[in-house]
């Protein structure tokens, strides 16, 4: 137990944890949205994220950017970032839709039991990650240095870099936009209606099928944003990148209260923090174990997560 290390590094660790947590939170949104509406753990969401991490790299590759290229100028960086974001969002969104149409919809048509969905999700996840693995020869792919981290704000030993601000900021803006979309827009109302009572929503003229597509799409978009941020922060991607982070994101979603958008944010940030603190205190090998122990403890006292399920009905 390295308490002095934790105390000494508390500031920098906190900002590092929040940065990772922001990515996890955005990723977790996809799980939470789909769960809120369909009561389904969309295991394949990790691969929706995975294709996003590759999509932006491939597009940047068209512009001749690879892990060895020098950091371009400010204006170009913004342009590249936007292009990368658009590519990742598009591909992730399309993949999410494809998974819904190929793997889930036929089952829903036949009113299959919930476990069947979980298993096709697993099948889809295995399929996509393996195809990516074969195509990339299971090699890692380095990310261009679009943003060279420089300190923007220094408080004591806590150096906050432009990249960290970008990631946390982008995550918060995306979350806020999504929250507004769900709570304010007509389409968002449809999502909430289906989440709360699918049958009643259908009677009220909400097109359930469209709402489900929308939910997958929106989850995919968020995963796409998370994927670009992941690339920038981690610097490398690989065919199994989605699986590892997917488990963390799913844990975060449950931690905050699956089905609850704000819960995903809270869960993600908390998980990010718990992991870096635990890594500092106990050693990096224990960070995942610490995350799960916190999860179990929280669920024992709050059986539906920190904020409870709110997008959907609370099941009595």
């Amino acid at each position: 137990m390295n308490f002095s290390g934790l105390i000494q590094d508390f500031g920098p660790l906190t900002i590092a944890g929040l940065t990772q947590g922001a990515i996890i939170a955005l990723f977790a949104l996809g799980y939470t949205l789909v769960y809120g509406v369909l009561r389904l753990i969309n295991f394949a969401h990790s691969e929706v994220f995975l294709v996003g991490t590759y999509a932006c790299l491939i597009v940047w590759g068209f512009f001749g950017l690879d892990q060895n290229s020098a950091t371009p100028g400010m204006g170009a960086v913004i342009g590249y970032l936007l292009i990368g974001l658009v590519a990742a969002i598009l591909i992730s969104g399309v993949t999410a839709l494809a998974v819904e149409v190929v793997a889930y919809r036929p089952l829903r048509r036949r009113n299959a039991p919930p476990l069947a969905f979980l298993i096709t999700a697993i099948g889809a996840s295995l399929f996509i990650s393996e195809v990516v693995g074969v195509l990339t020869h299971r090699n890692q792919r380095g990310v261009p240095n679009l943003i060279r981290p420089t300190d923007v704000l220094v408080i004591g030993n806590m150096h906050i870099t432009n990249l960290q601000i970008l990631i946390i900021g982008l995550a918060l803006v995306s979350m806020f936009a999504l929250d507004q979309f769900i709570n304010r827009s007509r389409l968002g109302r449809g999502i909430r209606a289906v989440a709360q009572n699918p049958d009643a929503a259908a009677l009220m003229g909400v097109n359930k099928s469209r709402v489900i597509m929308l939910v997958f799409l929106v989850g995919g978009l968020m995963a796409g944003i998370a994927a670009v941020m992941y690339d920038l922060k981690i610097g490398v991607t690989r065919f199994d990148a989605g699986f590892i982070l997917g488990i963390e994101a799913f844990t975060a979603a449950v931690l905050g209260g699956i089905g609850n958008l704000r819960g995903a944010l809270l869960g993600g940030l908390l998980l990010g923090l718990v992991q870096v603190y635990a890594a500092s205190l106990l050693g990096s090998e224990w960070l995942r174990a610490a995350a799960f122990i916190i999860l179990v403890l929280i669920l024992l006292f709050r059986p539906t997560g920190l904020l409870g399920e709110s997008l959907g009905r609370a099941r009595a």
Partner: protein
Amino acid sequence: MRQVLARAIGGVAIIGLLAGSAACNKDTSSDTATGSNCGYKLAFFGALTGSAANLGVNISQGFELAINQYNEKKGSTCIEVAKFDSQGAAEVAPGVARSLVADKKIIGIVGPPFSGESEAAMPIFDEAGIPAVSPSATRVSLSSKGWKVFHRAVANDDAQGPAAAAYIKDTLKAEKVFVADDQSAYGAGLADVVKSKLGAAVVASDKTEGDGKQADFSALVQKVQSSGATALFYGGYYTNAGLIRKQLTSAGWKGVLLGGDGMKDPGLSKAAGNASAAGTIVTCPCSPPEAAGDEFNTAFKTKWGVPAGTYSDVAYDAANIFLQGIEAGNTTHEKLNEYLSTVNYKGIANTYKFTSTGELDPTLIKVWAFKFNEAGENVADQEIKIS
């Protein structure tokens, strides 16, 4: 009832589909070659698929290249290549090993690459009496299990650790060193030796998850930074090392990353970027490639379209050791095994001579340091003398 029947037929149809796709098996029996000492097989045993496949593929490509060159020289398919995919997993290895020993034409094995699968597979090879030369299983205890057919064409973990420590102390002259490992048998073993040799110079240490299980190393990076260390020794493979190097550079840490031969792979600079990887030191119980090595590198690139990776050269040598033995008429398991006990072969990566337990002769073990340059290649830096 009819519906039930229809369902049942549907189920059978699916299985049939799977079986049908499985029906066209690869034809493994090619034309039997004629000529003296021909018609045998050499086997590669190791990971070809799965997340551990990178190293396995490196080795199998080096192995296959050697045999191809031999066959070209002979003008026929004299020695056949047999590849067995263990997925690098101890739980898969026994079944694959048993299927290997069932093929009576196989007279020698290059592999297994990893120590874990070696533990699971070697008892089977030993019972069948098929000689095996591992190009990369470095766990010290492997040679003390009493397996008569076990050989390794690489120094064990005891050789590299002290060398790496000596390099850090004598060449880098680093006073503050951070030691981390990936908890693999290889990485942890190496890191432990380095730690004990460096003593007080080690200011802090940490452990990470293995390859493919961790991508965010920000806690480790933070620890390295606040420890004030100027050198980080990482016991592990290039997959994690590339990630760590990149994240350290991003965080502004200017120190040197060092590691063992598991990190001696272009994959490291590919992941981290050449600029970031430049200066990274890897030790290797192997010699820098000489003229013969350059020839090998060109041939390898021509054949496989990728540069030779870690242990490709050792695997190439291991295959050639076997081929030389077969050429000399050692075409049974016993003879070949006996030949291995007396062989003295100068290959492209090293000179090979085995002790009675199958270890590389200690007098031949040279540990070299290699450095990643600005072009992302690891080039020989210097031979490490352990003082």
